[in-house]
């Protein structure tokens, strides 16, 4: 079986590897897929006969379910593997796990792994298409794509927008994918967080660094608010959740101090009252649930394109499947 190598390459490892046109083309392809989830019967034959393995070596609920919905609604056959209760806990290496899956003849692997570079590692070693569902602190490309799609839905154009990512940039794959994607599409990108959670060298990526969230809010048109993982507090990166909320939390009060409106994104799951206050999360400028909805369509588009689908034939493929 030969793997499909699409115009996007064999794999989606990260947005750093894609051109602006490729990214836009994925967003465009996601458009016709949005409607499938709104049908009474949410299933089309696009990936009929394809076998996809969701290999989740790190706990994930949202991303795994989003991928699974995308796969099932496109009629792919799917298998889920999680780290607990699999051969991984018996000491099998990543490369052996992958080779064993490969030996059962599969088409794609969606991988989530705690180590940066794991998706690329796998992609270089197996012929199946590999989709990165988050590797360590490296990239989470489908999350950034759905963020871009959601921003575009609301503001029309990414080019020239000022987008600030707020929170734990150091450990965040969402931040890296967003930075790469936004910069390629011509946005101005800021990052804001405690210095302990900003990687040194981040400014060399071409982003503006804000040490105080008030300045970030003053500057930005879009805020992408990252989850603060409780482990970071235990490791001493921030002294306490209360202190974090006090100095970096996104509150209505802070947002009302500026005279422009900001679009609020959050990749979830949220810690209400820590990085984001409930009135902001539930408020008029929050697009957090739309992100979730767009996530399914975005992942459908990625799977469709990697399976060899052409962007312009996406509409037709919904009825007929990929070649």
């Amino acid at each position, binding site marked *: 079986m030969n793997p499909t190598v699409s115009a996007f390459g064999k794999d989606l490892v990260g947005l750093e590897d894609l051109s602006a046109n490729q990214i836009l083309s994925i967003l465009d392809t996601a458009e016709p897929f949005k409607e499938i989830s709104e049908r009474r019967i949410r299933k089309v034959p696009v990936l009929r006969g394809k076998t996809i393995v969701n290999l989740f070596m790190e706990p994930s609920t949202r991303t795994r379910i989003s991928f699974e919905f995308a796969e099932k609604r496109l009629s792919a056959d799917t298998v889920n593997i999680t780290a607990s209760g699999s051969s991984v806990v018996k000491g099998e290496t990543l490369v052996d796990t992958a080779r064993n899956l490969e030996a059962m003849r599969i088409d794609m692997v969606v991988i989530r792994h705690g*180590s*940066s*570079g794991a998706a*690329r590692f796998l992609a270089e070693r197996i012929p199946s298409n590999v989709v990165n569902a988050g590797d360590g602190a490296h990239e989470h490309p489908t999350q950034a794509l759905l963020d871009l799609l959601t921003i575009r839905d609301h503001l029309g154009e990414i080019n020239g927008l000022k987008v600030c990512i707020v929170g734990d940039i150091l450990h965040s794959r969402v931040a890296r994918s967003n930075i790469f994607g936004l910069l390629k599409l011509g946005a101005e990108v800021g990052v804001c967080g405690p210095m302990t959670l900003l990687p040194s*060298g981040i400014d060399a990526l071409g982003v503006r660094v804000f040490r105080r969230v008030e300045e970030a809010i003053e500057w930005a048109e879009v805020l992408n608010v990252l989850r603060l993982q409780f482990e970071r507090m235990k490791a001493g990166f921030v002294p306490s959740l209360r202190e974090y909320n006090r100095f970096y939390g996104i509150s209505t009060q802070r947002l009302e101090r500026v005279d422009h409106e900001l679009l609020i994104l959050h990749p979830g799951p949220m810690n209400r009252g820590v990085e984001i206050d409930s009135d902001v999360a539930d408020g008029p400028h929050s697009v957090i649930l739309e992100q979730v909805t767009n996530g399914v369509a975005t992942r459908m588009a990625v799977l469709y394109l990697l399976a060899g689908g052409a962007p312009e034939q996406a509409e037709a493929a919904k009825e007929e499947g990929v070649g």
Partner: protein
Amino acid sequence: MNTQPILFRGARVVDPSQRIDKVLDLLLAEGKVACVGSDIEGPEDARIESCTGLIITPGLIDVHVHLREPGGEHKETIETGTRAAAAGGFTSICAMPNTDPVIDSPAMVGFVEAAGRAARLSKVYPVGAISVGQKGERLTAIGELVEAGAVAISDDGQPVMDSGLLRMALEYSQAFEIPVADHPEDIGLSRNGVMNEGLVSARLGLQGKPNASEDIHIARDLLVAELTGGHIHLQHVSTCQGVDLIRRAKARGVRVTAEATPHHLLLTDDAVDGYQTQAKMNPPLRTEADREAVEQGFLDGTLDTLVTDHAPHHYDEKEQAFDDAPFGIVGLETALGLMLTRFVEGGKMDLPTLVERMSLQPARAFRLPGGTLKEGSPADVTLVDPLLEWTVDPTKFCSRARNTPFEGEVLRGRAILTLVDGCVIHEAD
């Protein structure tokens, strides 16, 4: 040892200990250097080697090698490691104590010493641990380790974090005239770092080790050495500031010797791009500015000793996600070729200086026999073909390990004959 005398005729003999760099003959007999000179008449039973176009140096010495035995025999053994050393032109190597169990008792030193002797290849000089179990808590029985054959002490792989313990090591070791070799790294600053902290780590989403983690420790080590008058040997220096601190300490008379490795002289953290685990080492490959500073320090003698930090790992261990792969690369079989090609042929360093850094100076720093071709010294000799072109092919390594970032590199110059006490331990086919 009963050995046939060997007469090398017409080689370029490079011996920095006697300031010799000249086409001469060299006679080895009874395991010793018998004489160096012009038109030497050898005894009748001598093997005669015509050496036109070849280079003879005192046997190369590497004071920073991991042989992995005991406990890591799947990576390397004392036998395979010394075979690799011989193939690379090294006649003496110092074995680091971070094995399992740690080399922290006279019995363990004796084990390494005896296994090295039994392999009958390059000479193996054990390095004992500074602290029991390399735990950084209390000193080993340093005197007994030395009596058993240890030539230095080091907790290599583990920095000595407790400055008080380092002070005691630098004081106590002076009676035994051995260096205290330290791996300079402040582990509080390195945390879980797996590569250099900088632009590349920010892009790849890998945790970084900042230069400061090494600089602080180097500064601390130099100050404690100055306080005690002990001999600190700083391992694998990789930072710009680190080189500068050592340079200034040397100028004010601190007893310090310091290492440079071929990989820190030749590579930067760009080599990690693509999550190349063969470029994962500790200290990490740093930026071009650091590489240049290490090179400058190596050229001016601040970093006086070239070492490989030969760190063999099984290929399965490197065939993992970057975070999970171990630190280190092998170096014994590539060091000479890399240095001849990139430094000598590259016009950066003359051959006698390279030989000094790879033989005379390490012998001095660790007070080892060898490093010289003076009459009566051990017949540890390396014969080099400087024009031999070869490609680094890890599958052909004598080492059990293949972890090198230099695979496929085309090099010029290689050891074709290595002798220890007048016995051939390696001969290229």
